[in-house]
């Protein structure tokens, strides 16, 4: 059975169809990557899954329950966590306070452990807004992980991270995989190929292909749409 399943999920903005008829299945414990060119509708799709964006049509089923009509905060409480593409942390609060809000409790030990997982322990009393951009991304990821979600949605988590931080991130995701199901929007193909067990390619709001990384890599339509037309011609 899938942990997450969408059927006919569609979003139109004033006549423009951003996401059309998407059927997505994410199995429990897998790392599922969502890729596609800019403007393909990836963020809109996960927005509808998380409840940030209201679906025009279609259905979202999480853990066997139709959550389409459920407000975001209730979906989160069912075990879904969401990290924003544009960093959304509490800039004027300390790192420890940021994590405490994600945990839902002021447990300092748990906060330290969560920061430790992304390598931010030494600055727990610092204001989040004083961190570098890359570290803010890591804090955001830590907040997602701290919620111990069953499904963790990461929207371009490695954007702005240094190579060494990306290696750290990959290690973290591999640690989580198995227990936590991960839906990952990612542009960095190295990260996708290293982490993803299955990949869904989105183009112009539609699912172009779903499959194992090797299948996706060799799919001519995907190469045409995403990896560059010249490869497909060759």
């Amino acid at each position, binding site marked *: 059975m899938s942990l997450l399943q969408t059927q006919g999920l569609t979003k139109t903005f004033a006549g423009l169809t951003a996401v059309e008829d998407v059927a997505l299945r994410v199995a429990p414990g897998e790392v599922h990557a969502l890729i596609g060119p800019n403007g393909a509708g990836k963020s809109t799709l996960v927005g509808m899954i*998380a409840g*940030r964006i209201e679906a025009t049509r279609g259905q979202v089923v999480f853990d066997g329950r139709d959550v389409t009509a459920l*407000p*975001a*905060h*209730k979906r*989160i*409480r069912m075990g879904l966590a*969401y990290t*924003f593409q544009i960093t*959304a*942390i*509490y*800039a*004027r*609060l300390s790192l420890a*306070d940021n994590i*405490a*809000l*994600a945990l*839902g*409790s*002021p447990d300092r030990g748990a906060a330290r452990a969560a920061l430790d997982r992304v390598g931010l322990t030494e600055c727990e009393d610092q204001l989040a807004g004083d961190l570098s951009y890359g570290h803010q991304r890591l804090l955001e990821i830590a*907040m997602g992980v701290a*919620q111990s979600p069953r499904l963790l949605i990461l929207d371009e988590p490695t954007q702005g991270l240094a190579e060494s931080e990306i290696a750290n991130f990959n290690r973290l995701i591999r640690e989580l995989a198995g227990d936590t199901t991960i839906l990952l929007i990612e542009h960095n193909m190295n990260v996708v190929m290293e982490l993803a067990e299955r990949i869904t390619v989105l183009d112009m709001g539609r699912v172009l292909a779903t499959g194992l990384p090797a299948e996706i890599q060799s799919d001519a339509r995907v190469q045409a749409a995403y990896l560059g037309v010249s490869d497909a011609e060759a």
Partner: protein
Amino acid sequence: MSETGKIWALHLALIAALIVAGLVLPAYHQGNLARILVLATYAVGYNLLFGYTGLLSLGHAMFFGAGMYGLGLAMQHGDVSALPAFVIGLICAAVLAAVVALLALRTIGVAFMIVTLMFAQSAFLTVLYFGEWTRGDEGFVLQQATRQIAGVDLSEPTNRYYAALILFSAALLITLKLVRARFGRVLVAIRENEERTRMLGYDCFRHKFLAVVLSGTLSGAAGAAYGLLFGYVGASFTGVQYSIFPLLWVLLGGAGTVIGPFVGALFMFYLIDYASGWTSAYMLIAGAVLVALTLFAPLGLMGELRKRWLRWLP
């Protein structure tokens, strides 16, 4: 001393200092301080919504007025004695706040300011419309004989001072407890980033609704106490000026600090008091000081203190 220890020590020391002040201050200043304490209670209520939740209301005078008229009309026309009338005032403010919250919280930002302003104007006009009972602009005086609780004459200056202090202390300690609890942390989270807070699984609407109701009820308690302690109920207390005052006090004292509202109300009251002793253009002096404070201490007096030295200040 632990952080929690320091926090309680500071706030209890303030209350202790105010208890002593009631004994040693000359009558004139004792009277001023009684008034400041009631107004500071109003500001404490305002701060819960503005300072902690980040919702700027321009209509809090309606809650202050609901408390004042709830008490005043019950005493004047219903022959209700002071304590139950005070409770009626609280209930009026709480109910009004709940209704306004349900409607106004459908908006955010500037729209929220406008909607609260409009509701308050309607409340003000309602007071004038029912002039037969409210005596409109002229207002009415509560008879001295009725202004007592459990045999204590609240029109007597020292009694009045300590009644005001009890009210203020209760509001201060309730707020302190609240903002340090999970509820208060979530309010701050909503202020800082509502969308993030929602996506951490918090019901933002429920929290904002409760914040408006609590803030309105505290403001109403201040309004009811003002009527009871100073014996006068009038439409000017529901006017737009009385919606702006708590905003000013909170900004001056430090939005989102527990003692900021008191500091702001005290500062502003005595600023105007002293300035009017020197010149009839005292509002010019008050204005200049306000501009200077906004320039050099944009976080308010306690806000700057927290930023520079007292990181632990709640």
